């Protein structure tokens, strides 16, 4: 099982963000995408999960283009985007249930409560997301990762933004557990993160070369 790119290129308008990008990720490994603002981190992640079309090149899942087998690929993928996909008018637990059902894992109210409990949101579970702080909203969005452990590929756009220290540690342990289970994680962050040795690989879009 692996995700691979072949000579991936991305252009925004007239400007070329990156060309000939080659990366491979295999089970048990995490790939951290780095780069200054505007170097195309989010664009790359959107391409990797098939939301946007590469200017040239292809994204391959197990050797097959993800566009030729979209539903099968989506079944293996969990994507947390830049926008948190949280509805202001729904309560925290309703948000978790809806997000998880949409992702193909229907859960019950009680499961959502448990997931929020584990992220320290027990008191916010019944509040509408409108009144939650940025960090709490982020944690609501992250809560659904706990139901996606059977999806091997996680693509997370800035998962650590707005989280407090305790939540960062917690998220890291969730991510480490996923790697233990032979999962794959591709994520972007500007923060330093700690992973068990040898698992974390980096790709710096400023240089355009994997290191």
């Amino acid at each position: 099982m692996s995700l691979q790119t072949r000579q991936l290129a991305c252009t925004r308008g007239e400007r070329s963000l990156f060309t000939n990008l080659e990366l491979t990720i295999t089970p048990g490994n995490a790939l951290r995408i780095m780069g200054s603002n505007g170097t195309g981190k989010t664009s790359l992640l959107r391409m990797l999960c098939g939301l946007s079309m590469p200017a040239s090149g292809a994204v391959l899942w197990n050797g097959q283009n993800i566009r030729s087998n979209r539903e099968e690929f989506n079944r293996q993928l969990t994507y947390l985007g830049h926008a948190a996909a949280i509805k202001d008018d729904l309560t925290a637990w309703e948000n978790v249930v809806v997000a998880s059902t949409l992702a193909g894992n229907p859960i019950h109210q009680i499961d959502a409560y448990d997931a929020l409990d584990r992220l320290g949101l027990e008191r916010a579970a019944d509040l509408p997301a409108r009144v939650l702080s940025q960090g709490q909203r982020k944690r609501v969005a992250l809560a659904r990762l706990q139901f996606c452990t059977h999806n091997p590929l996680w693509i997370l756009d800035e998962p650590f933004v707005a989280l407090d220290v305790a939540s960062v540690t917690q998220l890291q342990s969730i991510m480490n557990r996923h790697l233990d289970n032979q999962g794959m994680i591709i994520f972007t962050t500007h923060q330093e993160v700690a992973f068990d040795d040898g698992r974390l690989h980096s790709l710096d879009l400023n240089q355009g070369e994997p290191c």
Partner: protein
Amino acid sequence: MLKVLICVAQRDLLLAFRRRSDVFSMLSFFIIVVSLFPLGVGPEPAMLQSMAPGILWVAALLASTLALNRLFAYDFADGTLEQMLLTPEPLTVIVIGKVLAHWIISGLPLVLLAPLLAVQYGLPGDAVLVLFYSLLIGTPILSLIGAIGAALTLGTRGGGVLVSLLVLPLYIPVLIFGAGAVGAQASGMGAGANLLLLGGVLAGALALTPWTTAAALRISLE
């Protein structure tokens, strides 16, 4: 598959319920437009009766266009639409769920209100019944076709005007058959032919538009 459809429809209904003012503003637009005409053109019963089907249908059509922008715009803004594109279920199923909820929110209330408002125009009972049927068959078509326009204009500035320009030409056959059915019944010709034609359009729209909308959504999110 059914689970996702129900989940999406339920969620949209719940969201609409928590944001009732949107629905009420659309309904009050419909009520106001329909109620102002008898005051404006005068109480001539014959004239009112002949104008009623057209006015009721045009008002319903404009009111449902008003609600179209909201169909995908909120989900687009907060990133939910991206998640919907990445579900293992076919996007078409999600589109059907959203359109169904949209019709229950913005179409069904019009269908139920129209017979009441028709009283102001002195329409005979059988014509009111035909009006009810024609709206019942016609408003789902408006939601289905409108969804294509809403999906295509996502993320564009001034999308509201653009959506009307895109969608109104496609609404015209629905308007003609819908208002025509009521007119035909009132003039004694029987509404059967018009209603059957509307039914045909509905069947065609059901079969084609969810796929078109799904494709349009993918294009808009590129």
